[in-house]
């Protein structure tokens, strides 16, 4: 499992690095850096750069500011001296997965369309309207890696009860297959499109122990108790992490495990570069901090044991 954890972390870090390069490319392509050679008023910069979607341009400038690529004063902007080293560690290269690269290239390209119009049909980041694109994203080997880690950590097998919050369209089959007729997998997702694709797959597989519900994870009130609760790549779309973590802990059996997989922002420097692209999805908030999750647990007074695996996995055992 250690090599899978390493694989996950190294690829997530590489997504951040590649996003950084593409973010700089956007600045070059739209003449942003040229406009910021001298101190300029914020609104003058927004006017001078010829793109129609000004809120997206503002988001780009704010991201540059967070990354130290430009300096932001009160209503003023100016470019900073900036250098960036892309790290390719030869010992780690064997863990690099190729299949996420073309998919992320598509996302990087979508920014050009988004600069024309936020509703441009070539932007495929809506959970419902573009559930097919999300399905392809969720089918990447990178996602299979963390699914296998979850199954291994949770020792998922028949007779267990698993709740997957923000299950997507692939996990109901790929995690559900480890359970059986004596177990139960309940997947919750708020996108009707994604749930529809997942249901089709479940029907094809004949996994009648898998139940899928179209519900917002903030609104769940399950009565059943679960041995495992999964939250993977979901908290970045949630504005109230504490509520989701509290709900998850509430439905856990004693000794049950909450498994959280996220690129925790403390562990990934420059993650703001990746976030800029993810904001093409309307619901995106930001990648969570590990500390916010721990804080939520403390505030709610749970007795728990927490274990961190690599840079992107937290296992919280309810005591």
């Amino acid at each position, binding site marked *: 499992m250690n090599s899978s954890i390493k694989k996950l972390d190294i690829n997530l870090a590489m997504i951040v690095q590649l996003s950084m390069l593409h973010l700089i490319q956007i600045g070059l392509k739209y003449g942003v850096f040229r406009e910021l050679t001298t101190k300029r008023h914020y609104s003058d910069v927004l006017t001078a750069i010829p793109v129609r979607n000004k809120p997206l341009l503002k988001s780009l400038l704010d991201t540059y500011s967070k990354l130290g690529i430009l300096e932001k004063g009160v209503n003023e902007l100016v470019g900073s001296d900036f250098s960036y080293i892309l790290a390719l560690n030869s010992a780690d290269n064997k863990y690099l997965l190729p299949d996420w690269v073309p998919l992320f290239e598509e996302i990087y390209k979508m920014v050009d369309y988004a600069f024309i119009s936020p509703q441009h049909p070539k932007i495929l980041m809506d959970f419902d309207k573009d559930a*097919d694109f999300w399905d392809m994203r969720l089918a990447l080997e990178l996602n299979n890696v963390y699914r296998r880690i979850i199954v291994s950590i949770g020792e998922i097998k028949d007779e267990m009860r698993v709740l997957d919050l923000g299950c997507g369209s692939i996990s109901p089959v790929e995690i559900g297959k480890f359970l059986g007729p004596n177990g139960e997998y309940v997947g919750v997702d708020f996108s009707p499109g994604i749930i529809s*694709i997942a*249901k089709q797959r479940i029907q094809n597989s004949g996994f009648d122990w898998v139940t899928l519900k179209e519900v917002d994870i903030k609104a769940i009130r399950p009565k059943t108790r679960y041995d495992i609760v999964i939250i993977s790549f979901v908290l970045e779309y949630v504005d109230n992490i504490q509520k989701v973590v509290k709900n998850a802990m509430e439905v856990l059996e004693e000794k049950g495990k909450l498994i959280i997989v996220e690129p925790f922002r403390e562990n990934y420097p420059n993650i703001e570069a990746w976030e800029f692209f993810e904001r093409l999805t309307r619901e995106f908030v930001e990648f969570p901090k590990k500390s916010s999750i721990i804080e939520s647990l403390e505030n709610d007074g749970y007795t728990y044991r927490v274990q961190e695996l690599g840079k992107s996995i937290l296992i919280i055992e309810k005591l």
Partner: protein
Amino acid sequence: MFIDPFIIRSINRSELRKRILLYLNEIYPNATYLAEIARVVKSDPSNVKGALVGLGNRYNGYSSLVSLGLVEIIEDSGFKYYRLSEYGKKVVELLRSYHTYYNKFM
């Protein structure tokens, strides 16, 4: 292998191309000839040829199944046979998974 969702969406809207792909998937990994495909999908051979390799303005280079890499041509003793490619097989799998979704949302 990246699959462009616009290709899947476009094929889903094109009944003939979809029927051809589903038939070639059914007989995969075998290949077959144009007239046989036309007979099974109940269409005119010229329309089927257009869907497979392009024909004038209909099914131009951007949308024929061969130019999209979904179907490959095998030439043997002067005859042409058509077979679903590996890439085409993946596209068919996705088309099937998205069947309900496309019907409901698109």
